[in-house]
């Protein structure tokens, strides 16, 4: 839920990231509110991944002031990493470990205690209706299950923010929606969701959406407002109007 009065869980001010002479992020400034679903859109090569890596504490900006979950991006990267979850299209689950082993591994990395891990994985198996799959290798379970697993594992330590980088590529439309049910639920429980996608209908599930073009934020607002401002019937049209100028 987007609440204007909620605290800023992510603050980005004048973020610049250069690779040699190439400017990947060109003075980005925005805030994300606690508990909202924030859509981070842009064409391929617009600079999304670069920005996400910085927000997750995996890469330093060239310049700019950034706070994530109340921590400074330059001085408190380890604290940031403890307080965020991350999931990408290339699921970070281990194919040759079982479902339970993957849960135990990730929960262990975040320092969860053994009895907590047992309990959470039991709840998780129940919630995902995967009890029979507990001891199956990840490589042997369907793509849709893997995806739900990957998301659940990304929030197993109850982070403040979860970053989802194109989480729904390639799955069937029913699974894609079940996945968004999980996102809505996480958001209702107060986890802030920062998500990128190429499915423009998914952009409409977000509380607010930013659209990056050539390293800059070209628009940022609620889907409703963006559609109104650009005289568009859907987010797809908004996106095409903004991003079309750039042809690669």
């Amino acid at each position, binding site marked *: 839920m987007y609440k204007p009065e909620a605290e800023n869980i992510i603050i980005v001010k004048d973020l610049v990231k250069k690779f040699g002479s190439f400017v990947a992020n060109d003075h980005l400034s925005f805030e994300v509110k606690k508990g909202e679903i924030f859509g981070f859109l842009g064409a391929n090569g617009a600079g999304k991944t670069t920005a996400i890596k910085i927000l997750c504490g995996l890469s330093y900006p060239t310049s700019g002031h950034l706070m994530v979950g109340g921590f400074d991006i330059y001085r408190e990267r380890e604290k940031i990493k403890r307080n965020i979850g991350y999931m990408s299209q290339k699921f970070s689950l281990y194919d040759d470990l079982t479902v339970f082993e993957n849960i135990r591994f990730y929960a262990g990395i975040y320092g969860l205690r053994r009895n907590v891990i047992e309990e959470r994985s039991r709840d998780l198996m129940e919630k995902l209706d995967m009890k029979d799959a507990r001891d199956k290798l990840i490589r*042997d379970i369907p793509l849709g299950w893997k995806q739900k697993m990957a998301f659940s594992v990304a929030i197993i330590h109850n982070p403040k923010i979860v970053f989802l980088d194109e989480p729904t590529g390639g799955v069937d439309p029913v699974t894609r929606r079940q996945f968004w049910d999980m996102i809505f639920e996480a958001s209702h429980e107060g986890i802030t969701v920062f998500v990128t996608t190429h499915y423009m209908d998914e952009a409409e*599930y977000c509380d607010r959406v930013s659209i990056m073009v050539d390293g800059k934020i070209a628009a940022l607002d609620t889907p409703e407002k963006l559609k109104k401002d650009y005289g568009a019937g859907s987010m797809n049209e908004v996106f095409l109007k903004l991003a079309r100028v750039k042809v*690669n």
Partner: protein
Amino acid sequence: MSAIQVEHISKNFAHAKALDDISFNVSKGELFGFIGPDGAGKTTLFRILTTLLLPDTGKALVNGLDVVKDYRKIRQDIGYMPGKFSLYSDLSVEENLNFYATVFGTTVSENYDLIRDIYAQIEPFKKRKAGKLSGGMKQKLALSCALIHKPSVLILDEPTTGVDAVSRLEFWDMLKRLKNSGITILVATPYMDEAGLCDQVALIQDGKLMTISSPSEVIKTYPWKLYSVKSDDIFRMLNDLRMFPGIHSVFAFGQAAHISFKNEGIEENAIHRYLENKGHTGILVSPAVANIEDCFMELMIK
């Protein structure tokens, strides 16, 4: 004669049934779309048609030639763009194109007309190594290479996966132009919104064809009464609607939900009242026309 004729093809792998009794025809000059998620069997089917994999049972003909017996001739006739980028990363754009032309015993200049529109967009980068190209440029180079021997049938396996909405639109414009030049095109995609751009679509899930028809026909076959519903709290609304007595399906579509009833008698104001009683605000209920995604999901849950 059909450009592609497939009769009762099945294929099993050690742990999975990849294709289950698949039959269909593609007419000459048609743009035919295979729509389905990852793991549906699209790639397996395309590998059989491109003579890279043998079917367990069944028969497939490309331009009247058998994919098993006449595989050499078929390879001369078709252009194939695999789902995974498969050009040589350490060769330049130009070198890749020349390489493919040479392999097929032709030259780039001989068939340049066919690829002009597409190749012109990446020509400024022709000295760049293919591995250093952006996703959109790789896709254009792969398409140029698949076309350079002037194939009569073009087979494209998920050319637009992971590609942004703008590049996808441009790619489909290119396909339309190629179709107009007479090439038969078979294309696979997980994006339901691309179905409407095909002459014929086959919806595929778990190795089975669920339906084959023109996109407009597919939509006409949607069987239930469908409504679009909105409220201020979509998450709670979805959950509440699932509890609505007599409901058949509830699926999120952007900022609205599409809901269907088998019972024709349920009216808009009944839905409105139900949500109001659950404390919803900003409620909007209107009749909706099914799209391909509605149809796909209906076929999936059937």
